[in-house]
């Protein structure tokens, strides 16, 4: 019983820590994005709330929470309220299998630095990311508005297309690590990160991850100049905020996954493991923001052609080549 209570306590502490760090980072990623994007476009970005606009996320969240929560009369109320929650929850839950350090021994008890190490961790991530599509599709449908519906349809099509290349690009990684568990995959990269052996898979995964998180240049579901705001057009207040949190948590999750699958996870010299993982996440997120400041949006047919005719064949060839190398 004591072990059980201690385990529960440990789990609660880990959960609240990870959740807190995730949400805090999500809030400050918004700040970083606005600031960095501003400098890329030769302007200042937020600089009014606090020094360097550092209180901006707090001001934003106060605004979001206190704003009126509007449910359009023509909308489907239950699904309309469910959709943003699905987006935020699936994004947050993905972090449950990301290891952020080697196991620590505390008071004679070994504590794994991961919330849960299930042996199908990689598939768990995919399961959640495929459930995340429902948030977009249902949000678009339940709003009962033309633009939102178009955004939802685009989002669903885009996300199921790029999920394939996302999954296929990781097969070589699984083949090399010989495990679906993210802890084992990180452990397999103790000497060399997989990006050295798998640069093609890295690029395919990165592009598909950006497409999965619906960021520029793949932000067709919310293309501002064609669809208003796309699938979250009719949302206001904190429901919109949940979509927003989902997007920025997604950025971090994909940063963490890129780090885990290709960049050696928490492995790194000198600094403590958790810091290394955080650094990798932040660098990848900043690169995504840089990309947003540089690239224009793809056209819809270009998006589909690129996904189906370039990324998926490339990923399949990569699997065959890796398999051949492993056999030799």
């Amino acid at each position, binding site marked *: 019983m004591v072990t059980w209570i201690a385990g529960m306590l440990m789990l609660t502490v880990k959960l609240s820590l990870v959740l807190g760090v995730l949400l805090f980072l999500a809030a400050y990623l918004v700040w970083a994005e606005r600031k960095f994007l501003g400098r890329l476009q030769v302007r200042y970005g937020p600089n009014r709330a606090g020094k360097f606009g550092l209180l901006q996320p707090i001001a934003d969240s106060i605004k979001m929470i206190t704003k009126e929560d509007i449910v359009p009369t023509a909308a489907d109320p239950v*699904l309309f309220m469910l959709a943003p929650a699905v987006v935020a929850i699936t994004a947050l839950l993905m972090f449950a299998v990301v290891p952020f350090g080697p196991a620590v021994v505390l008071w004679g008890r070994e504590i794994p630095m991961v919330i849960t190490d299930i042996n199908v961790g990689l*598939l768990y991530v*995919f399961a959640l990311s495929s459930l995340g*599509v*429902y948030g977009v*599709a249902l949000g678009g449908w339940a709003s009962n508005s033309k633009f939102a519906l178009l955004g939802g*349809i685009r989002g*669903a099509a885009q996300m199921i297309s790029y999920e394939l290349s996302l999954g296929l690009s990781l097969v070589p990684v699984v083949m090399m690590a010989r495990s679906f568990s993210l802890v084992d995959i990180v452990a397999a990269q103790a000497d060399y990160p997989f990006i050295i052996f798998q640069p093609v898979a890295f690029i395919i995964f990165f592009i598909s991850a950006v497409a999965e998180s619906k960021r520029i240049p793949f932000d067709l579901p919310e293309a501002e100049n064609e669809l208003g705001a796309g699938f979250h057009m009719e949302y206001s207040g904190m429901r919109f905020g949940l979509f927003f949190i989902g997007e920025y948590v997604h950025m971090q999750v994909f940063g963490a996954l890129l780090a885990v699958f290709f960049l050696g996870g928490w492995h790194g010299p000198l600094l403590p493991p958790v810091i290394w993982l955080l650094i990798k996440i932040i660098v990848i997120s900043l690169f995504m923001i840089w990309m947003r400041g540089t690239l224009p949006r793809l056209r819809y047919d270009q998006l589909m052609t690129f996904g189906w005719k370039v990324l998926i064949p490339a990923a399949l060839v990569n699997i065959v080549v890796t398999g051949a190398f492993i056999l030799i």
Partner: protein
Amino acid sequence: MTFYTILFYILAALIIVTTGLAITRRNMVHTIVYLVFSFFGSAMLFYLLGAPLLAALEVIIYAGAIMILFLFIIMMLKEEAPESRLFPFRQWLPATLLGFAYLVLGSLLVVSADPETGEPLQIATASPAMFGEYLFRTHWLAIEIASLLLLIALVGALRLGRFDESESRKAEDAS
């Protein structure tokens, strides 16, 4: 009654209720959402029974991919909620009979089966590697047949979706 038994009954209730709701809803999108919940429940059940791989695949393939495609199609088509009963009586009757027969046969099977299998919650974890080995060593023929079927379906879809150039030229001439 252990913790796992309680979880099992909660999940079983969830599956039955959501499936029932999925059958009875008029709104197609609601049907799909309930069905997704039902699939999610069965995935949880698989996980509880010690098959995490199956659980993950259930969510990825059924809840994730197939239901999204259904949703996609329903969103594309302009659906109208039917006013009266969904199907005429002569379609209801065979469906009911078949369902009843299935229920009877299923319960007979469960009752007459080995009493050992009546213990549903023996946790026995199969690792993905073991599962894959088993599947590809002992059932390779079935997998090959299934993949051939999928290939045929793919070719068929390609043929159907192919843009017919001569027809489009005709349409252009007409307009």
